[in-house]
């Protein structure tokens, strides 16, 4: 990661060790005069083996960025690569396979299939692909997340924190190239939230995974190696080795730049869960 070049090309990093990359990524909604640019020619590199947080006020395009990088959403212009694969221009079926085999997902809520028990949820992407999970890896993940005695439980029988741990285990289980976590702590109390963040941190440090997390909780962002700040569809800043205070400080500058924050994304509410 070259912080020296940060001012010119925020979010860009060295060519080797890049898990995902976007160039000129633009996402527009609507057409003609009413066009809204959710992402405005974004260039970004996600470093392999790192924990990257994406922050920004509501409407800054951070979720859209994640969706485009993860092959969930189509782009209006620009290119996106996962590893060496350009995913812009892939067909729907290929994108589905790519998500299944190479990306892990954690969402804010409704992460698990209610009819399947924890173990079945964890191995679901591999089951869908018709692949046998790597038992050794799977056991390590399950033990790391402390889910050993919860495997037979259905989601309804698990607490919110346990559910997110199962989601985390599912994201890790297939040893994907990239894990996307969209507000993974948004619906949790602070203790459970910390636990989940700890697991994501461990996934990077101990299991060598790559994690991208969208959040607007500065405390959550502080667990990352690098925080990318999005505003009005552009990457406006980045912060390495962040602390909660520094992130909060940086978020407040959005306030001063733009005068006001829209909606519930004001930095002083940053810890509150977001409905976004």
């Amino acid at each position, binding site marked *: 990661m070259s912080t020296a070049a940060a001012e010119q090309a925020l979010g860009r990093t060295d060519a080797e060790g890049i898990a995902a990359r976007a160039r000129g990524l633009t996402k527009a909604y609507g057409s003609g005069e009413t066009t809204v640019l959710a992402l405005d020619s974004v260039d970004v590199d996600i470093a392999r083996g790192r924990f990257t947080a994406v922050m920004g006020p509501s409407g800054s395009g951070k979720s859209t960025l994640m*969706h485009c990088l*993860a092959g*969930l*959403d189509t782009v209006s212009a620009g290119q996106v690569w996962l590893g060496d694969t350009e995913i812009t221009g892939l067909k*729907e*079926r290929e994108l*589905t*396979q790519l*998500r*299944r*085999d190479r990306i892990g*997902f954690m*969402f804010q809520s*409704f*992460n*698990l*299939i*209610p*009819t*399947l028990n924890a173990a*079945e949820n964890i*191995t*679901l*992407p591999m*089951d*869908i*692909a*018709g692949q046998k999970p790597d038992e050794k890896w799977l056991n390590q993940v399950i033990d790391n997340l402390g889910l050993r005695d919860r495997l037979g439980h259905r989601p309804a029988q698990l607490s919110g924190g346990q559910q997110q741990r199962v989601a985390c285990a*599912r994201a890790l289980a297939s040893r994907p190239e990239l894990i996307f976590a969209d507000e993974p702590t948004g619906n949790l109390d602070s203790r459970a939230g910390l636990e989940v963040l700890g697991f994501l941190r461990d996934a990077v440090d101990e299991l060598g995974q790559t994690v991208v997390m969208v959040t607007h909780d500065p405390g959550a962002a502080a667990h990352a190696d690098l925080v990318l700040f999005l505003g009005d569809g552009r990457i406006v800043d980045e912060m390495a080795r962040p602390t909660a205070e520094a992130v909060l400080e940086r978020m407040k500058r959005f306030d001063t730049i733009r005068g006001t924050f829209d909606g519930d994304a004001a930095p002083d509410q940053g810890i509150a869960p977001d409905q976004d």
Partner: protein
Amino acid sequence: MLKATLRSFLAHKGRLLLSALAVILSVAFVAGSLIFSDTVTRTFDRLFASTSADVTVGPKDDDLDSQIPSGAIETVPTSLVDRIATVDGVARTRADVSVENVTVVDSDNESVGPTTGAPTIAGDWYVTERSPVELTSGHAPRGPGQALLDADTADKKHVDIGDTLTVIAQPGSFKVEVVGIATFKTTNPGAALVFLDPAVAETKLLGKEGVATSIQVDADQGVSDAQLKQRIATELGPGTYELETADEQAETAAAQLGGFLDVIKYVMLGFAGIAVLVGVFLIVNTFSMLIAQRTRELGLLRALGADRRQVRRSVLTEATLLGLVGSTLGLAAGIGLAIGLIELMGLLGMNLKTAEMVIGWPTPVSAYVVGVGVTFVAAYLPARRAAGVSPMAALVDAEIAGVGRPLRVRAVVGLIVGALGAAALVGCVTATETGSAASLLGLGVVLTLIATVIAGPLLVRPVIRVLGGAFPALFGSIGRMSQRNALRNPRRTGATAAALMVGLALVGGMSVASASMTKSFDEQIDKTLGADFVVQNSNFLPFPQEITEKVEATDGAGLVVRQRFTPVAVRLPDGKRVETTAAGYQPQLDEVARITYAQGNTAAALADGNIAMDATFAKDHDVRVGSTIPVEFPAGQRTELTVAALTDQDAAEGFGTQGGLFFGFGTIEKYVPGGQDSALYVNASSGTSADTLRSNLDKTLDPYPQVQVRDLADYKKLIHDQIAVLLYLVYALLGLAIVIAVLGVVNTLALSVVERTREIGLLRAIGLARRQLRRMIRLESVVIAVFGAVLGLALGLVWGVCVQQVLALQGMKALAIPWTTLVAVVVGSAVVGIVAALLPALRASRMNVLAAIAHE
């Protein structure tokens, strides 16, 4: 509140559409059948009223109606014409000859008569302003060798003036040249008409002179039909002849035709009934699901101050609206259905005019009563549940209502009703009298059906665990999820499957019953039929003497035993009067049939003055060997016969021959003069092979297309075909039930897909392909459909076995379970599941992944 209701109605119109379809279907069948039968009745009332004489004098009605006629033609003497002419107020009198049981064949020995079962009528050509036909080409028949043919028949069978036809009448067959074509001025009821010179009609058609089939009388001006009838009755004396005014005649004629029309009417009402029954499940299910989805909205209404009654009323108003819309569309569809039926009748030769379609006031009234009533009743329970939604539901993120509610009440009620039903069925199986067994059977069928519907949701878990047990192994996690999705809301799965279950239970029961009947008849035929060949009409109708003579004279025919049927009424020692059909046989019966006797033997049974009957029937009515019983024959003939033998046969009482009565040929010839044979049992003479005899008989009977030669196998097939007609009707009913059941499954799946939007979004996000998603929904649909089929067939199997037990009381003791049919139905239901899943699966797979994830 009304505004909110209307809004909600319109907002959910897509979902209500499927319920509306069920309403439309049932209303359409009700309205269609009413319009059709009204139209037919009106048309024929007009036809008969305009073509009947003011007063018709016919042979005395003997009140003995039977499906199997004796073949004797009842007549009145033509001398009555002169007597009646003297009555004051009579303008014109004439003797009319008109016989129905003739066969007319062309030069290729093909019958020119209708193939629909409508009669071929031969009569005298006598033109009045009331004739239903007029001469349109050629000239009136003169002398014994000429005839007129009706235009429709001539057209259909390509008969032209100058062609030669053979008329096979009771006295004998004769050739005629077609010299003219008569065209219907009124509606053609589908019959074929042949007219002869009046001077020869009596001898040719009735076989003797001085008789007619009726005397037609027209009144002077100013004399009413009823007055004239009264005067003629006084002249002729009471109780000797049957007198009918034009109106009464029209009524009788319409009633005779009515039998056929009633069949159509009841079939249509059967369809309507099935549509209503299955539709109710669909409507209940739809409303339950709509309410479950709107729990929060209803809670909000309650929180804002709407009371329970208002909420309930709101739902019921919605149902009424649905009923009104459905009834209106159903009425329109019913008119279309009636037009279709009228056109269909046209193809069968009955030319009704769609322009004269009758829509009486009862039609729309019944349409709306059925449509609105059914919807209202079906929506009542869901409406009550809606009213029970607490205001808190608006505030909490409520799970779908009804999922978690315990099924204890259902279990208890289902168990009680089921136990009662089972008791009734056990009672039916152990009953010894047909009457009580049949009513117990009916009760048991209804109760077990209700119990299964109530307890259906309880059976969902255990049954689907088994049915879908192999899914995870076969289809991996997709199979696992689809199986568990089906288990997710047992009430919904149960209600959805119930619609299919009802139809398939009926099919299961009927197919077991009919297979058992077929097997019983087969065994019976194997056991009793000893003749090499049977010559008879495929409708069991009698045929002229001429055929018997030809068969007897056929080269290689050894023994020929003649059989005749006649309607009879017997007064039994227990005081009951039983109307049935009895048979008369020639003495060598033992040579062509193997009859098991409980008492007596064939010789005794067929001796003069004797009668034989089924032993069980005899026991039921306190008849013993030696009892003397009074027997009434047609045309007022009466005698007393001594019971000389009791038979002990399976299926002695088939097809309207209750009691299995039979006696000697002499008895039937004596009391039913002019009767015709209805079957000939033929054995080959010694030295002649069966094959040779068969080809000889076929040659002999070539000019007589109304009868066929059958050996044992052919005879069985004839019986099978008769039973198959019943089955086809059942299969048609099943078809309708399946259509509606499919709508129900579509409905349930569509709602499930909407409810699981987020889940589907998640699955798609983590890599479930569209194809896999569609398969998941298909498998869920299949498991629901097969669940319904298995439940239905299990129930139907029980019913079928019970029906067979009732039939066993009638001697049909064989039980056959048509496993191939049952397996085919299960496989078919899986196909039904796949079809029903098409649209919901497509919809699910088209869902935008991001929108689905964000969906609330």
